[in-house]
């Protein structure tokens, strides 16, 4: 996984997202975060990570223009990554 650190935003009106990414085994070998930062103008910062044979779990901060953040998340989902806010299930019964 690749990550850049951002201390102050380089974006005029930044949008940030704090996310849990959960990868199925077929994506564990793929440099997903590196690809994300090359496809979209986004800054990533990994806060926690755990990778096993069963699942890859990465806690990621994502910063960029709002449309880029949205597009990046859409791309991750399309790839098969489960994307949730760090709060996880906020919709309860």
């Amino acid at each position, binding site marked *: 996984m690749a990550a850049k650190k951002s201390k102050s935003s380089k974006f005029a009106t930044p949008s940030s997202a704090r996310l849990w990414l959960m990868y199925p085994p077929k994506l564990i070998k793929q440099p997903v975060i590196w690809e994300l930062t090359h496809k979209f103008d986004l800054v990533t910062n990994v*806060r*926690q990570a755990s990778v096993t044979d069963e*699942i890859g779990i990465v*806690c990621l901060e994502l910063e960029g223009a709002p449309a880029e953040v949205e597009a990046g998340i859409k791309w991750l*989902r399309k790839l098969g990554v489960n994307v949730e*806010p760090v709060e996880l299930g906020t*919709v*309860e*019964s």
Partner: protein
Amino acid sequence: MSDKQGYMKALKCRECGREYPLTATHVCEFDFGPLEVAYDYERIRKSLSREAICSRPQTMWRYHELLPVAGEPTVGRQVGYTPLVKADRLAKRLGIRELRVKNDAVNYPTLSFKDRVVSVALSRSVELGFKTVACASTGNLANSVAANAAAAGLDAYVFIPSDLEQGKIVNSLVYGANVIGIKGHYDEVNRLCAEIAGKYGWAFVNVNMRPYYAEGSKSMGFEIVEQLGWRIPEHTIIPMASGSLLTKVHKAYQEFIKIGLMGEAKWKMHGAQATGCSPISAAQKAGLDFFKPVKPNTIAKSLAIGTPADGFYALKVMKETGGHSDDVTDDEIREGIRILAEDEGIFAETAGGVTVGVAKKLIASGRIAADSSAVLCITGNGLKTIEAMTGHVGQTRDIRPSLREFEALLAQDKPQLVKG
């Protein structure tokens, strides 16, 4: 009690242990781990005794030193102290020596355990100066936030998926809450709610108020111990949605020991899920420390969280206590609801059917020994999920107002009762 903190010390990250002020915040700025309330147990030990508890009104607030509200509660002052029912008929059916049902199906005011967590979250919100409260919910939580906010004069925003059944929406609208339907997939609704909570700074009960909110669940555990005659049950079986309730009832048992109200004891915490949404149960059965997200497909809507926020911690508690988890199909859930109703006169919502069904499995497999005692936690009322049982509980048989027709019917059922 201090004006601002009561018996609380700080908010503490469950991952790295960093401490934060007691504000409306919920994740650690370093590792994004969840924050939890830390207490001054030495002070609590001096203030809280069995005698003090017994002298107080029979509500969840009789344990207020161990709940995260600094002063007197202002919202939901009558919540809790629901019956702990000795369930001998169900015990006999399931094959266990001693069984009790903690019946939050009759919790006040909205007939679910959510009134516990919401009354804590809203009381703390008032202390922190909030005027607007919010939640994202498909049922019990929405009802509870709407009702408790109305009673406290707070403005409430309830976010729901736009395709939710009309009956569930009425249960929130009636209290005058602002109910906002969101079009889109669950994942999108989920993230939008986290964003709204961050941007508007409202007291979002299960987002930025979550450290306080979740602690309200401990009151169920405190009550179980007191109502059992100051005894911790050998086995507690708890339905799992986020997994929070299981971890908090466990924490309640630990805290009573920590402050000297109980001697050392051993107990097992068991978790129940529906097969159609069983990320925690599947992980426990596979011996994993983490869960894999799932797309829910079950009649137990109140447990349908595919990415449970406390799943990791629930797995940890079950492992530490030697507890187990299992899951049940929709048919087994209906059977669970039916046998609890037929044996004990308690009509639980689908989550209750899950709990009874899983208890039956764990007892039958010997994971819960036949010669032991157990408590089943029932978290909501069956009147809220009637559609799950419609068409599965038999039908009425109509007759004309004629004694002859009635006796003909009785003769078919129980001929020995017919008088000549």
